[in-house]
C-alpha cells in the first residue's frame, strides 16, 4: 500500500501544475523570509485564504514551499545586515555577518544555500523512509489519546518556549476557549454569539492566524524604519563558499541530525535547533574555532540544521496535528481548511498526499539550491525595502484574505482584535504558538474529549486508566511530568540533600 501511495504521490508532485506552485512558493518564501519582521508565519498566514480556490494538495505544497523557502531566505538578511529575516536565522548572524564584514558575503550566502538545500534534501529522503513506521504509530491512537495529545502539545510548547508555565497554559486555554464560539460541535446549539448571526460559524482559525501573525507583526514593524539602514555590498566567491561545505562533512551531517531530531519535538522549532547545532559545533571545535569572528562552521551548523527542522516538524504536524512552530501552526490551519485530517487519514487513505508533500519538499530543496545560488548577487535589494510600504499592503491583504474565508465581517474584526492581543501577548512573554494551537486544535480536542466520555459512559478515568488505556495513561503521566516535573525535581533534590 505504501509503495503504491508513494508512486501516486510522485506522479502528483511532478505534474507541471504542482511544480509551478512549488516554484512560486519557494520564490515567495525566499523573499518573505529575507524581510525581517515578515518571515514564514506571516507570509503563510496571508497566503492561506488565497489558497481556498486551489486543490488541497496544491495548497499544502504551496504553503510548505513558502515555509522551506523562508528558512533559506531568512539567512540572507542575517548575513548581509545582521537582522535575521526569521527567528530561525538568528544563529546565522553570529558568524554570517562577521563573514560579510570580512568581505566574504558571497561565500557565506553560498554556504547557507548549499548547507540548507543539501540537508533539506537528505531530511526529505529520511522522512519518506520513516513514513511506514509513523503509520503504525499513528494508527495506535484513539479519541482519548488525541485529546491528551492536544493538551500535551500545549504543555510542551509552554516548556520549550521557556516562559512561565502558567502563562503558557493560560494562552493555550484561551485559544481553546475562543474556538468554542459559534455553533457547538456535537449539538446544533449556538454558543457565545449574543444574538449576532455572524458569530454562528465562530471565529475562523485562519483569521486568528492572520491576526496573531500578520497584524501583530505589522504593529511591531511600525516602529521600525527601513529594514537595512546601510548600503550593502556583496563581496567574495560563490564557488569557494560551496566547496567549504564539503570541507566539513561531519558538521553538515551532525547539524542536520540535530535539526531533524529537534524538529520532531512538538513545540520546538528551528530557533532552538539552529542554536543547539551552533553551540554543539562551537563546543566540538574549541581547538581551532574562531566562532563569532566569521568562522564558516558557524554558518554551516545553523543552516544545515534549519531545513531538516522543517522535515522533522512535519512529523508531529501531519501525524498528530501538533505543530512545532508558528509556521507549522499555519500549515496545520491550511491542512484543516482544505478538509484534510492530520493523523490516521493522512497516513491511511490519503497517504499519497502525504508522499506528494514529502517529494515536493525534496524537489524544493533542489530548487532552493538553483534559485538561491542565482539570487546571491541581487540578494541585498530585498533588504532595502521601507517598512512604510510593507505595512499598508499587508493590512490590505490581511483584511481581504480574512473576508474571503466566509464573507463575514466578524473575521476581519477578529484580525484586528487578535492582532492587538497577539502584540501584547508577545511583549509580555505569553506563548502565541500555544494560543494559536488552542484555536486550531480546539474543535478536534472538544470532539475527541466528548467521544472519549461517550466511550467511557462519562467516566474521566478513561484518560488515566493504566490497564485498559495504557497509552492514555502514559500521555497523562507525560503531561503531569512536563508541567510539574521541574518544580517537583527541585523539591525532591532538596529533600534528598537534607536527609
Amino acid at each position, binding site marked *: 500500500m505504501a509503495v503504491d501511495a508513494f508512486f501516486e504521490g510522485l506522479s502528483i508532485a511532478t505534474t507541471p501544475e504542482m511544480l509551478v506552485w512549488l516554484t512560486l512558493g519557494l520564490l515567495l518564501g525566499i523573499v518573505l523570509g529575507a524581510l525581517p519582521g515578515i518571515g514564514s508565519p506571516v507570509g503563510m498566514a496571508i497566503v492561506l485564504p488565497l489558497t481556498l480556490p486551489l486543490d488541497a494538495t496544491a495548497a499544502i505544497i504551496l504553503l510548505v514551499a513558502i515555509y522551506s523557502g523562508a528558512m533559506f531566505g531568512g539567512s540572507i538578511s542575517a548575513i548581509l545586515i545582521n537582522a535575521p529575516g526569521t527567528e530561525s536565522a538568528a544563529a546565522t548572524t553570529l558568524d554570517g555577518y562577521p563573514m560579510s564584514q570580512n568581505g566574504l558575503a558571497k561565500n557565506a550566502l553560498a554556504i547557507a544555500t548549499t548547507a540548507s538545500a543539501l540537508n533539506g534534501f537528505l531530511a526529505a529522503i529520511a522522512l519518506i523512509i520513516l513514513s511506514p513506521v509513523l503509520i503504525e504509530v499513528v494508527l495506535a491512537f484513539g479519541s482519548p489519546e488525541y485529546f491528551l495529545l492536544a493538551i500535551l502539545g500545549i504543555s510542551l510548547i509552554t516548556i520549550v518556549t521557556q516562559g512561565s508555565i502558567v502563562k503558557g*497554559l493560560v494562552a493555550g486555554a484561551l485559544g481553546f*476557549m475562543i474556538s468554542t464560539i459559534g455553533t457547538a460541535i456535537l449539538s446544533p446549539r449556538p454558543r457565545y454569539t449574543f444574538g449576532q448571526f455572524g458569530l454562528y460559524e465562530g471565529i475562523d482559525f485562519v483569521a486568528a492566524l492572520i491576526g496573531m501573525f500578520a497584524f501583530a507583526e505589522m504593529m511591531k514593524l*511600525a516602529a521600525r524604519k527601513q529594514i537595512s539602514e546601510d548600503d550593502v555590498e556583496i563581496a567574495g566567491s560563490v564557488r569557494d563558499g560551496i566547496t567549504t561545505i564539503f570541507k566539513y562533512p561531519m558538521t553538515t551531517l551532525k547539524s542536520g541530525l540535530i535539526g531533524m531530531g529537534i524538529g520532531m519535538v512538538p513545540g520546538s522549532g528551528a530557533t532552538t535547533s539552529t542554536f543547539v547545532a551552533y553551540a554543539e559545533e562551537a563546543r566540538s571545535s574549541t581547538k581551532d574555532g574562531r566562532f563569532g569572528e566569521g568562522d564558516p562552521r558557524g554558518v554551516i551548523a545553523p543552516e544545515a540544521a534549519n531545513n531538516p527542522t522543517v522535515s522533522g516538524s512535519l512529523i508531529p504536524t501531519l501525524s498528530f496535528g501538533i505543530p512545532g512552530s508558528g509556521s507549522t501552526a499555519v500549515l496545520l490551519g491550511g491542512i484543516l481548511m482544505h478538509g484534510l485530517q492530520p493523523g490516521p487519514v493522512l497516513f491511511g487513505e490519503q497517504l499519497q498526499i502525504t508522499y506528494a508533500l514529502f517529494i515536493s519538499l525534496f524537489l524544493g530543496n533542489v530548487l532552493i539550491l538553483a534559485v538561491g545560488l542565482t539570487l546571491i548577487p541581487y540578494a541585498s535589494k530585498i533588504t532595502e525595502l*521601507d517598512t512604510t510600504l510593507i505595512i499598508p499592503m499587508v493590512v490590505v491583504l490581511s483584511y481581504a484574505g480574512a473576508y474571503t474565508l466566509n464573507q463575514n465581517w466578524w473575521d476581519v474584526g477578529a484580525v484586528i482584535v487578535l492582532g492587538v492581543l497577539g502584540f501584547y501577548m508577545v511583549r509580555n512573554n505569553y506563548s502565541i504558538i500555544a494560543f494559536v494551537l488552542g484555536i486550531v486544535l480546539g474543535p478536534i480536542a472538544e470532539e475527541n474529549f466528548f467521544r472519549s466520555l461517550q466511550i467511557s459512559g462519562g467516566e474521566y478515568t478513561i484518560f488515566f486508566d493504566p490497564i485498559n488505556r495504557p497509552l492514555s495513561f502514559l500521555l497523562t503521566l507525560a503531561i503531569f511530568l512536563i508541567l510539574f516535573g521541574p518544580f517537583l525535581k527541585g523539591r525532591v*533534590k532538596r529533600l534528598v540533600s537534607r536527609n
Partner: protein
Amino acid sequence: MSNSESFKRKVTAERVMLVVFLVVSAVFILEPVIESYPDDARVFPQLTASAVFIGSLLLLLQNYLPGPLQKFVAESVSITTSDSSEVIDQVEEDDEPLEEVDEPEEEYKKETLGAKYGYEVNETVFMVSTAVLYFVVGWAAGFLFITPLYILGYTLWFRVNPVVSVGLAIGGTAVIYLFMTYLVLPFDQGHVFDFSPLVPMLFDGAPILLRGGL
C-alpha cells in the same frame, strides 16, 4: 510618590490584559448557566474558561500568593533547565512587581507629516488607528473605494515619495479588484454607502476613457 503615580505604575499593559481575560472567561463560565446550554455544548468551554480564569487570577495576584504557589506561578522553566532549584532560588530573589518585560526594540523616529505641523503620534498607535479606521470605513463604504485612500493616507503621513504612494495605492486597489472579480466578493458595496454603480465607470470604462472617450 503620589497616589495617582503609584496607580499608574501598577496599571501595566499585562495587568489590563489579565483583567480582560478574567472578565471574558467569567462570561464564558456564566453564559451557559444563564442560557441553559446542554451538557455537550457547555462542559468543554466551561472547563477551558475555568483554566483561563484561575490562571489569570494567579498571574494577577502572584505578588500576594503564599511562597510555594508564588514560585510555581512565577517560575520560568524549560526542558533544557538542568536544575529547577536554581530557578526556584532565582524566583525567591525576584520580588519585583509584575511589570512589562519586553523592552521596545530599537525604534527609529520616523519623519511624519504630523511632526511637520507639531503633532507627534506613536507609530504603532498610528498604524492600529488607521487600520481600525480603514476597517470601519471599508465596511461602511466598500473596501474598493477606501483602499487607495488608506494606502495614500498611510504612506503620505510617513512622507513617502508621492509617486511611490500613488503606485502603491493603485497596486493595493488592483489586489482588491482582483479579489472582487475572481472570488466574487462584494468589495464595491458598503453597508452604509453604496458606490457600486461607479465601478463600471471607474474600471470597465477606464480603457475607453484612456483611448479618448466614447
